[in-house]
């Protein structure tokens, strides 16, 4: 019993249980759910969505929010295809430039937040509009079709069984993030600043640098997600990123992240993405109106926040 209560205190245990339950339930109603094709579709969604979630998670870790995650991802995506189609740049260079744009957008967010002292909410709301506006200015709301064949091939290639190549960058990012947040000073600083900015400053941590690094990282991850979406859709859609915002908060929150900052979990956030993907998939399988997905996502966020609050109320290591 003690072990169980210990497990229940970890961030990943609840989401894992929910994932398994969801899989069993949906499998019971639908034979097709665990077909190889279906699993492949699930994994494709997870590959992109996990990066979107991580892009937000790193900002939640410093106790802020980034509303411009989708706008950055969209801008990176269309510049990626645009640079290939219009300028004829080789794919690797276009990838690097697109990711640089992502990082740049993040740095702009971070610097503005620290210089002005205005809340991240307002700054990223403004930059969301700006980045999206630039996107629309470049594309004139028309997609770029010049996605090279190598990228298209990457988007549909499978590593093994139903596992798509698209999942590989995501997996590497997840491992890298986990290592950074638990083993590298920069990751600890991000969590320290999110936990208590004042105390972090007193401990010699540069709050400015840490916040800017976190936003740069968020921009980078959003950029990677944008590029991967291009590979998956095989087209440079200007609307890429438009529907990322709710998901980007839902997954970290389901994964036990504290919105006030200082605590996030890479593995539990991943499970959060899996849960969202499974439920979305199930709604499709059962022919339920896809617009209902939004409603379900909202409900999930409320439930997760409520659960986190309950967990936080349990006294930890303090008898009175």
């Amino acid at each position, binding site marked *: 019993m003690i072990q169980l209560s210990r497990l229940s205190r970890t961030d990943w245990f609840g989401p894992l249980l929910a994932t398994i339950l969801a899989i069993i339930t949906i499998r019971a109603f639908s034979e097709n759910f665990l077909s190889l094709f279906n699993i492949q579709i699930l994994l494709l969604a997870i590959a992109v969505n996990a990066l979107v979630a991580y892009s937000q998670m790193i900002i939640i870790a410093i106790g802020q929010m980034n509303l411009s995650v989708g706008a950055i991802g969209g801008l990176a995506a269309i510049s990626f295809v645009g640079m290939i189609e219009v300028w004829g740049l080789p794919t690797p260079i276009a990838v690097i430039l697109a990711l640089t744009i992502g990082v740049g957008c993040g740095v702009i967010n971070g610097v503005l937040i620290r210089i002005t002292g205005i809340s991240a909410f307002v700054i990223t709301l403004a930059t969301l509009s700006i980045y999206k506006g630039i996107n629309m200015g470049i594309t004139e709301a028309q997609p770029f079709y010049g996605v090279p064949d190598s990228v298209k091939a990457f988007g549909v290639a499978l590593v093994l069984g139903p596992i798509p190549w698209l999942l590989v960058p995501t997996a590497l990012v997840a491992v890298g993030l986990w290592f950074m947040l638990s083993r590298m000073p920069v990751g600890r600083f991000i969590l320290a600043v999110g*936990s208590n900015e004042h105390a972090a400053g007193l*401990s010699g941590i540069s709050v400015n640098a840490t916040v800017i690094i976190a936003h740069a990282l968020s921009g980078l991850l959003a950029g990677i997600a944008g590029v991967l979406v291009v590979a998956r859709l095989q087209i440079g859609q200007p609307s890429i990123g438009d529907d990322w915002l709710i998901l980007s908060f839902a997954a970290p929150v389901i994964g036990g992240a504290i919105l006030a900052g200082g605590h996030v979990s890479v593995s539990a956030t991943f499970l959060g993405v899996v849960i969202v993907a499974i439920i979305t998939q199930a709604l499709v399988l059962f022919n339920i109106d896809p617009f209902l997905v939004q409603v379900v996502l909202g409900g999930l966020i409320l439930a997760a926040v409520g659960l986190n609050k309950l967990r936080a109320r349990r006294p930890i290591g303090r008898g009175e």
Partner: protein
Amino acid sequence: MTDSTPVFQARGVEKAFPGVMALSGVDITLHPGSIHALLGENGAGKSTLIKMITGVHQPTAGTLTLDGKQVSFASPRDATVSGVGVVHQERNLFPRFSVAENIHLEQLAGAYLKPINYRALNDAARPWLKALDLDIDPSTLVSELSVARMQLVEIAKALSLQSRVLLLDEPTASLTSSETDRLFTILRRLRDSGTSLVFVSHKLEEVQEICDRVTVLRDGANACDSQPMEGVGRQDLVRMMIGRAEGTASWRARDTTTHPEVLGLTNVSTALGHKDINLSVRKGEVVGLYGLVGAGRTELAKAIMGKFTITGGTVRINGTPVTITNVAAAIHHHGLGYISEDRKNEGLILQHSVLANVGVPIWRKLTRQFSTLFDRDIRTAALPYLQKLEVKTPSLSQTVANLSGGNQQKISVAKWLAASVQFLIVDEPSVGIDIKTKAYLHELLRDLADQGTAILVISSDMPEIIALADRIKVMDDYRIMGEIINTGVYDDIAPAIMNLIHDSVAPAA
């Protein structure tokens, strides 16, 4: 002075905040291998002095010297690097980080990408934990420690930075007596190894037990400067802390014993932990509720107003037992008013106009058909009170944030006068206002009482409570410790109040 050379000195330190002189020429001399008490009432300037020594504030005038060399700390970092450490009253730890990481975060601050070797970190933390008799695994999460141990971890953190001067701001405030004893053993050991410690506490017994020198501040100046503790008795300390009798001029005895009771509490307990609270305020009477910060006074006021749940006992208004479930009912049905100590966050809506602020509690009363509200009505209702209090504002549409602290306070009083409450709770009325306005405000409150309002004044400023109250209730640790009939004679009442509080501490030790 003694033979040892001082490690740290402050000479003629002044600190002015806009409108307030927080410190005017304070001296303090710290010697190695000594535990130095820093005493003073709330508002005497202790925390300002600490903040200056530790680099949070910079002095407006005066010098700080470390090892005989003049220093100026631009930031708290500067101070810690120079060997001046501090353990603040509020915790500055990261609860989800391990003990070792909390202690050594400073050392990691140089590199961003070098992977952390947790084993080395734990090994490096062990000697510091051992030095403090802390028998915990350095990899334990701080959130799993007791408050006392968290405090020791902060001390370990300060020591690991080679602090030669270590300031402890009320370190025993949240400790049990046995935890305090252990802390003292450790502090003595640190002293014997040459550290210069500064000990800030309200508990005089502790100060006498452990300190060898004492500096007392009063009204932002030295009541004594780095005096050896030998031969200084408890009563001497009390006298230095409360010193002069001030502001009693306007006080006069009033007999209200025949007046009917407006608010009565009998054996009241609250969800916040108040126990057996008995309190009665009569018509036209000013009752003072004295206590130190954290004694539960504001919380009691808010419980009376219906903000927090009352779990036992009876609350009477005009003799009738009542249950007040929310603040709106307290104001509109029972005629209770509460002037918050936190004027800026709870008392006023700073971005709104004078008129809107005064009008809030009477909006309900003034609404006409279809819930419409006219500025004209509010003006008619509010203006007499604003004039009576001589609020200085260019116009009624002026934003409250642009007015001085004194005028803001007048507006929060006017607001409740306009609401014509029969019982008014005034929480720390003179926080952040200058001495002249303070005297004026005191007169105003007593005038109000003369006109029949029952008033409960909450204050931790002793001269204030003695200048205002007819009777004084002393509160400590969410209980009423006793009652004193105010005679207006400062030298009699102040020690009596102090004794009620400090006696309550003594038996716990």
